[in-house]
Structure formats: C-alpha cells, structure tokens
C-alpha cells in the first residue's frame, strides 16, 4: 500500500468490510449517511461541551506517531488505520472541515478532506477495532486522549444507528426492558441464584449465609456486572465470604429493582451513560443506601466511580470498589487469609478501566501478596498494562471473536505465557471472558479467575470450616 493511499482522513479500500460488516448492526441507515452524520455531529456540538477539546486537538495534534508503538492492536495488525492518531484524525478532519471557518475556507481553496460514504465505512470499523484502553493517551506528548475521541466518534456513529447490535440490545433491555439489566436476568432468577449461592457456600464453608435482599438503610448497596450471577458464582461467593468474615453481613444489600453495574454507555454514548447511572442511583436512593459497592468489574467500577459524581451531583453516594473494601478489611485485621492454601503461581491482570488512571493498581497486589507466596507480575503492569483485547465493549461482540483472538488479544496472550503463571487474576467481568477465550484459543496452561475466587479459597470464616479443610474436601471432590 502506498503511503499516499493511507494518508489520514482519506478513505482506504476495505475489502473485508465491504463483504461482511465488522459487526452486526440492527437497523443501519443506508441512505444519506453523510448528511445524517453531519446532523448528528452538529447536535452533539450544540448540546455537549466537546468543542474546546476538538479545537485544541485539531490544531495541535503533531502526528508524531508515538501512540502507534504503545497500541497493542497496532503492534499486531501493523495496519496504519489502527494507529490511534489516524483514528482520532478522522473525527478531527470532519470537525475541521465542516464545523470551523478555517476548514470551510480551506475546502474552497483546495481539494481537502471530504466526508464520504467510504469514510463512514472506515469509521464504522476502526472505531470498534480500538479497545478504548487509553494506553496511547499516556504516550502522547500532547496528552491527546484518543480514548475519549474514539468514544465521541462512536457516540456520533450511534446517533445514525451505527452501533454493534450486541451492545444496543443489552442497553435497550437495561433501560427499557422489564428486567432492567443487560443479561435479561429476571428478579425470580436472581433470587434463585442467590439461594443457590447460599447453599453452595453452606456446603463449602459450613456456614449458612442468607443473602440480604432489598434491605433499607444499609451501608452498602451491591452492584456487579449482572452476568456474574450467571457465569461467575465463585467471584460472588468470594465477595459474600469477605462481607461475612468481616462482620458486615448486616450492613449490605442487593436491590431487586436494579442489580446491574454494567454501563455500556461508557463505551459509546453520553445519553446511555447518564441514564444508566441515574437508574443505579435511583435504586440506591430507594433503599436509602449509604455507599455504592461495585463488584469485580473494570468498566462498571470506572463508570460508577467517575460518573456518579458527574451525573448525581456532589450529594450522590460515594462509590467503593469491592477491591478497596476487601483491602480495608484486610488492613484492619477484620479478615484473615491463610497463606498456606494457594501453592500455584499467580499473576495479576490490570483491567484498563481501573488501572489506567492509577486508581486501582496497588490494592489488589497488596491483597494477593498477603496470601499468595508465588505471586509474579507481568511486564508492563499497572497504569502501563496491555489491554486484554476485549475492552471498550468488544468482548460482548461475538461476531468479532476471531479479531479479538488473533489481533486484539495477541499481545496479552504472549504476556500471559511469559509469566508462566498457573492462575491469572482478572477482577473484571469483561477481561475474564476475553482472557478465558484467549487461554482456550492459544492453549495456554493457565486458569483465569477473579480476585475474590482466589480469596474464597483462602479466607478464614468464623465458625466455619478452615481453609485447609476446605482445600482437602475440594481435592477429594476432584478425584
């Protein structure tokens, strides 16, 4: 491919995308997409406040390409369209050409950028090849936040109907459906699951814990990614075990009107982001809860932590991540983790949404080091970590599984293999799903778990079986 053909802002031939779209779209707009997109962009500029950011970025972006080497997608694909600055530039070019005076004048004088159907096809794909992990933002000398621009690009696309069906259907159920959650888990099924978890815990640790449901005036109202109720019972039992062992069993509750922490609005839409946050706040207010406790999930934690104050105002309830809560209990000596239980080599994957900002990096490591003798870190880690390849909602889009395995997650798979770990801890519903698929795809000799799955094995439960007894029982069961 000649360099001229891939200059930023110009369209590139998309042989694959023309045959099959990158992802399924429910009701794609087929006519006049250019007009629709410009109308949507104009509305966004009128009512939101992205203008200052676009003005600044579109003048000063230096095209230095430092972002390229930090991008785990580009590292594998080598496709210039995956360079974060290329993707950002598409949106900046549209803004410059159609919404600034300078751009309008320039367009009269020369054959500059023009928004065409091909550019929209390009956007449709490149904005969803990015996992919105924001690693590039850290390497940009200007500080251009490619993650934020990608999100804005997706937002504008969503306003003309271009949004992966998988995300749209889930969000519709969450905001307008009867169950108010992305996995369509009805209240009855939730209660069944909680009963099942309670029985399992009883068998495992020998203590009956009835999950507190719809209790008012509790310290914590608990929200996890709702899919955890279907797919991650060990994480939830681990959460419960910590709350019970810490003596906080009568201080928390799960609401039955809304129990989903997932917020896909973080990935593609301001409107959805705000309304899902409001729905979550309504439930906490209904139960008169004092804090919002978010289970193991990267984007759920970030969307609540960062956007409850934005949309709920200064009086909104504080958001606590379950990892922070567990560490506090550990430091206060309210829970004890047996250091002789976990003999496997364990590593930790930082979910981008909580680690990139530096919010949750050391806390899980402090917890793990306290009871895992054979703990090993990946390189790079923490704020510098590589995305699992399923970020930005990509993991929920089944039709791009092949892309997520071969390109998005390749760097992570290599990184995992290098640690030689038996267990990789990923405290995030999205990362867990993606990493499990990666482990299977690349046949890596390790298991993917949540942080509290591991804690469940080593935590001492007052009045229950000891961790050593439980380990023995589990070994017998496996034989």
């Amino acid at each position, binding site marked *: 491919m000649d360099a001229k053909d891939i200059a930023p802002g110009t369209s590139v031939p998309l042989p694959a995308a023309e045959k099959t779209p990158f992802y399924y779209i429910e009701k794609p707009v087929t006519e006049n997409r250019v007009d629709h997109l410009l109308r949507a962009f104009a509305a966004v500029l009128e009512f939101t406040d992205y203008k*200052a950011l676009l003005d600044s970025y579109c003048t000063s972006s230096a095209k230095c390409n430092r972002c390229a080497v930090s991008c785990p997608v580009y590292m594998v694909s080598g496709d210039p369209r995956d360079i974060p600055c290329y993707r950002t530039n598409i949106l900046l070019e549209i803004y410059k050409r159609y919404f600034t005076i300078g751009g309008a004048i320039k367009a009269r004088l020369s054959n500059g950028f023009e928004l065409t159907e091909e550019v929209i096809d390009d956007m449709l794909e490149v904005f969803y090849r990015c996992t919105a992990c924001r690693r590039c933002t850290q390497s940009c000398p200007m500080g251009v936040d490619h993650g934020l621009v990608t999100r804005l690009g997706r937002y504008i696309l969503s306003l003309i109907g271009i949004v992966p069906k998988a995300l749209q259907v889930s969000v519709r159920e969450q905001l307008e459906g009867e169950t108010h959650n992305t996995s369509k888990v009805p209240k009855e099924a939730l209660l069944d699951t909680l009963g099942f978890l309670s029985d399992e815990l009883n068998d495992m640790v020998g203590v009956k814990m009835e999950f507190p449901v719809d209790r008012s005036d509790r310290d914590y109202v608990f929200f996890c990614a709702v899919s955890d109720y279907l797919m991650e019972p060990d994480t939830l039992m681990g959460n419960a075990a910590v709350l019970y062992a810490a003596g906080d069993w009568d201080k928390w509750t799960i609401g039955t009107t809304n129990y989903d922490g997932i917020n896909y609005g973080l990935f593609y839409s301001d409107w959805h982001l*705000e309304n899902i946050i409001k729905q979550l706040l309504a439930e906490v207010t209904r139960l008169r809860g004092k804090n919002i406790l978010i289970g193991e999930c990267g984007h759920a934690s970030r969307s609540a932590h960062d956007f409850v104050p934005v949309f709920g105002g200064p009086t909104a309830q504080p958001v606590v991540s379950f990892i922070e809560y567990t560490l506090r209990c550990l430091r206060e000596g309210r829970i004890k983790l047996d250091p002789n239980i976990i003999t496997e080599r364990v590593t930790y994957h930082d979910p981008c949404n909580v680690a990139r900002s530096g919010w949750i990096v050391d806390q899980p490591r402090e917890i793990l080091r306290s009871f895992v003798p054979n703990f090993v870190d990946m390189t790079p880690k923490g704020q510098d970590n590589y995305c699992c390849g399923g970020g930005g909602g990509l993991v929920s889009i089944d039709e791009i599984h092949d892309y997520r395995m071969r390109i998005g997650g390749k760097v992570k798979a290599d990184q995992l293999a290098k640690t030689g770990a038996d267990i990789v801890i990923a405290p995030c519903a999205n990362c867990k799903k993606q990493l499990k698929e990666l482990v299977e795809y690349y046949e890596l000799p390790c298991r993917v778990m949540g942080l509290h799955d591991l804690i469940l094995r080593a935590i001492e439960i007052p009045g229950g079986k000891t961790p050593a007894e439980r380990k023995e029982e589990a070994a017998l069961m496996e034989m």
Partner: protein
Amino acid sequence: MNIEQWIDFAKGPLFALTFMIMALGLARHIVIQVYELVTEKGRRLTAAPWRKILNDAASWVVPVKQIMKGTPFFSSVSYLFHIGVIVVPVFLANHIVLWEKTLGIDLPSISPGWADFLTLFTLACVLVLLGFRIFGSRQRSMSRRIDYVLLVLIFLPFATGFLASHPSFNPFRWEVMMLVHLLSAELLFVVIPFTKLAHIVLFGFDRLSAVHWQLRPGAGDKVADALFGKEARV
C-alpha cells in the same frame, strides 16, 4: 530600496508586525480555550482532578520515563530539539538586543559557544526528525504535507542565522544571509498560530482530558431530542 534598507525594514516594522500576528494568534487560542472551558464546563471545572492533571503535565518536563518507552531514539531527539528551538531564539546574545529594543525586555544571554553548539545540534535534530518522517514507514503514513514543510521552515532561520554569524562558513553575502534569516524567522512567526506549532500554548489545554471527561449532565437527552424527538432512543 537597497539591501541594507530591506534589512532595516525586516528588523523593524516587519518584525513588529509578524511578532504581533504570532502573539495575537496564540492569544486567540488561549482566549477561545478559556472561554469555551469556562462557559461550557462551568462549575464542573472545580470537580476535575487538578492535582493529577498537573502531576501528569509535570512528568513531561523531564520525560525520562516516557522517552524510554517505545521510541527512545525518536523521543530523545524530539525532546532535545525542543530545548534547542526554545533556548537559541530566545536567549541568543544578538536576539537579546532585539528583544530589548522592540519589546523592552531584558533577558540573560547564553555564551556564543553554547549558542553555536545548540544551533548545530538543533539543525541535526531537525534532519533526524525529517528522516523519521521520510523513511519511517509508520510516520510517513501519518504525515501531512505541512509536517515536512514546518521542519524545513524551522531549519531555515537556524541555518541562515548560523551562517550569518560565521562569515568564514558563509559562501554568500552577509546581507543576503541576514535578510533570509530575518524573513524566514518572520514567516515562522506568522505560521505558528495557524499550524500545529500552536501547541506552544495549546499543549497545556490538550492535557485537560480529565476535565473533558466531566460530561455535561442532561446533554445526552438534548442531543437525542434534537435528532429523534421523544421517540425511543436505545
């Protein structure tokens, strides 16, 4: 006009005019940014994590950690290049006279030896950066015409300034060299506010992404109302 008069013109009125264009152009960027931030973000500005923003920005002043990641050679050259383009034009002894005469500012000057070294070093850096743009496939794929042009525009005043102040290396008439030096620098002044070189002031605003993540409450609703009316929007 003879060439001496041209030089006087370039040093006097033209310098004042082009410097003014640069100053006003950059001020315009600052005013627009501050205005947009204050009117659009309003009270949400106070909610932004300013300490973190400042810490992040400060980490780029001496970006050892950042330079070592990914592209150490390119980043080092780029960083050192910035030292040259800031220090030489501002603190060169001959320029200080100019600042004092036209702007009334008295600045300390660097020694001629340092000035020569930094000038040649900056020129070398420009050539390396140009080399990256031309021969690095990744960079070439992203480069616009202006990215090459700007490097040449920066190269010119440095090269001509060096030749003008070192007659033994200068194959041309001093006056010609001096005039080209003045005009090329003034061209750069004019270009700065209209190109990516405006990052002289905009880099500070680019770093405010944490502020921009403080989205405007209710805006999503208004956008949807404007586009779809009150229909279903999920």
